[in-house]
């Protein structure tokens, strides 16, 4: 009897839920009296960032009764699986938040709208060309297009325990005068005392971190020949950063071996305890430190070390428009509003990342010393388009070849020659399939 009652209640609830549920995803109104409806898939996940996103959407909706935006929250872990299906099924959201590495494949498959002729002049000029380069890809038909508006970027910095840093007596690097990799290694050695290490490299996902830093020595990892074919290359330039990190782990023993298999944020509890002094990480990790660090814990943000240059590979967060969107012009208007300088500063603060907008970067909140914003923002000038962004097949190379090979290398199970061979030989087999 109870089961029957429960089922009856469920039936009523289903009816209510089904009737109340939205239908049609990116369904668009066609009546001239009804507002245009746009779905905006956002990947914001931090509290402040979600709040900033929702606030901007509300602002837009109030000011633009004719173009109503629906905020749809997605998640970073699954967004590309979600989009693959929705693109194939023709139900993708109008405005899509993603990151630049994901855009190349979608662009060449024809799922994203080329924005180069739709970008308003003020938005175009406010974002520097290197950021636009991260979203410029082949259209799959021999041409080049702009498939997203880049708005937040991540650079690598070093989050350091101030007390241990001061005690070591090393020179404190600044944005204008960062450590060289040699100085960084020396500093890590000086900070290694007893059971405390100088640095911790969290290498659960080693590829983007090492490839972005490899640009310090001109390491591109990919080269395109005269025949237009891209192959993997691991020469001396590419080996520098790999070798230096490996040395810290296994030669100098100045890097905490426990952190090796951990994700980016996992070493933080040990960091607060002083188990190691420095944590190379993306700028966004400062938010976790601010939120979690015990009272009285002092920390600073240091610039990443430099090699022959301080260049780092840039990956942008982006807003794109689906090719199938019925309202691309309205979607572009929304993007222009959403990513203006003032709003980008809000979004960057919410996500603890760097805005691409020059107006946003000049916002006093982006240059304050508090929580290392000054160092983080200054690091944006070193960001250049990461060569791997343009490589068709990079995702497969990364997951099937580079991640396991680099993990083995950093765990000292294979030599640098062996890792280089794997990256090149196995990698080229992967790339070959994408270039037939």
């Amino acid at each position, binding site marked *: 009897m109870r089961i029957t009652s429960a089922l009856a209640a469920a039936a009523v609830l289903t009816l209510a839920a089904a009737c109340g549920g939205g239908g049609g995803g990116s369904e668009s109104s066609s009546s001239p009296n009804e507002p245009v409806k746009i779905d905006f898939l956002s990947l914001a996940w931090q509290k402040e960032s979600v709040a900033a996103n929702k606030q901007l959407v509300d602002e837009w909706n109030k000011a633009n009764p004719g173009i109503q935006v629906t905020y749809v929250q997605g998640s970073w872990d699954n967004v590309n699986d979600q989009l693959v299906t929705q693109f194939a099924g023709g139900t993708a959201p109008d405005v899509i938040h993603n990151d630049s590495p994901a855009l190349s494949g979608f662009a060449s498959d024809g799922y994203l709208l080329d924005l180069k002729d739709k970008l308003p002049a003020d938005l175009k000029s406010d974002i520097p060309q290197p950021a636009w380069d991260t979203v410029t890809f082949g259209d799959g038909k021999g041409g080049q297009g702009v498939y997203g508006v880049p708005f937040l970027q991540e650079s690598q910095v070093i989050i350091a325990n101030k007390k241990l840093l001061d005690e070591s007596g090393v020179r404190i690097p600044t944005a204008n005068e960062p450590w060289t990799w040699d100085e960084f290694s020396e500093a890590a050695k000086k900070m290694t005392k007893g059971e405390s290490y100088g640095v911790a490299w969290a290498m659960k996902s080693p590829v983007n971190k090492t490839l972005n830093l490899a640009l310090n020595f001109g390491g591109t990892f990919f080269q395109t020949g005269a025949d237009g074919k891209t192959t993997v290359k691991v020469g001396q330039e590419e080996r520098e950063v790999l070798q230096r990190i490996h040395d810290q782990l296994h030669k100098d023993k100045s890097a905490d071996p426990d952190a090796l298999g951990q994700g980016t944020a996992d070493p933080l509890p040990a960091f607060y305890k002083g188990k190691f002094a420095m944590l190379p990480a993306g700028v966004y990790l400062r938010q976790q430190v601010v939120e*979690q660090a015990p009272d009285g814990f002092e920390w600073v943000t240091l610039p990443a070390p430099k090699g022959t240059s301080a260049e780092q590979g840039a990956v942008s967060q982006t807003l794109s428009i689906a090719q199938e969107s019925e309202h691309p012009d309205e979607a572009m208007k929304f993007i222009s509003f959403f990513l203006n300088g003032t709003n980008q500063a809000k979004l960057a603060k919410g996500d603890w990342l760097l805005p691409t907008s020059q107006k946003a970067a000049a916002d006093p909140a982006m240059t304050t010393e508090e929580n290392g914003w000054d160092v983080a923002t200054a690091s944006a000038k070193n960001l250049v388009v990461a060569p791997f962004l343009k490589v068709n097949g990079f995702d497969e190379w990364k997951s099937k070849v580079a991640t396991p090979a680099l993990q083995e290398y950093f765990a000292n199970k294979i030599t640098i020659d062996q890792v280089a061979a794997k990256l090149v030989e196995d990698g080229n087999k992967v790339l070959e399939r994408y270039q037939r």
Partner: protein
Amino acid sequence: MRRASQYVALVAYVVFLAFPLLWLLSTALKTPQEMALTEPTWIPREPTLANFGDAFGEQDLVGASLRSLVVALFASVITVLISLPAAYAMARYRSLINKIAIGWVLVSQVFPFILIIIPLFMILRDLDLINTLPGLVVVHVTFTLPFALWMLQGYVRAVPRELEEAAAVDGASRLRSIASVVAPLLAPGVVATLLFSFISSWNEFMFALVILQDPDVMTLPLTLVRFTGPEGVARLGPLAAASLMATIPSLIFFAIIQRRLKSGLMAGAVKG
């Protein structure tokens, strides 16, 4: 003495089973600083409800739980309703078609979901079922049905054929013998299958992710994943608080259904 040791063993087992739930509760009540300690604490030093505030403030947890409950209930009931007669036929009738059907049920389990997700999505789109809970119910029934069929078939086989023959000798028709003799003995199996289907649907994420796009129809797994970021970074406090609240509807369902499981077991014992 023997009884005491049995109780000790039982308590230890319950504590073991309850560990994830207790840890979830403990985490949900901790401050971010306490969560980042290298020596985790069982009892929060400075308990806070802020995580619950954040979880409920940012996401429609109540609505999502309700929708998940509705989808899981319907998917599980429909699965059982469809699979029960099919399982009976598979267990009682031996023919080539039957064998092929059983083989196909097994083969269907080896396909990865990702292979079928795009064609399934297209079919649902053509049926105008994208972004609707009935659409998700259809999908959940589709993917739980083969295993439910397999489970129930085993339960039907376990009921002695002789009982039906005895009922037939007493003059019962096949339908009557199924209703009066087989059905009560199958009750535990039906409830177990119902639970399996419910859990599968309740936890299902991938299909819901691609089928449901409107925030107003999203189910609980989609809502919980909103507290995670790139590279496995998560907002543990709100995630734990939301996950804790998310367990309540399924606990209520289990509390209701487990009595049925017990009564079904007893019915089987008497008839057997």
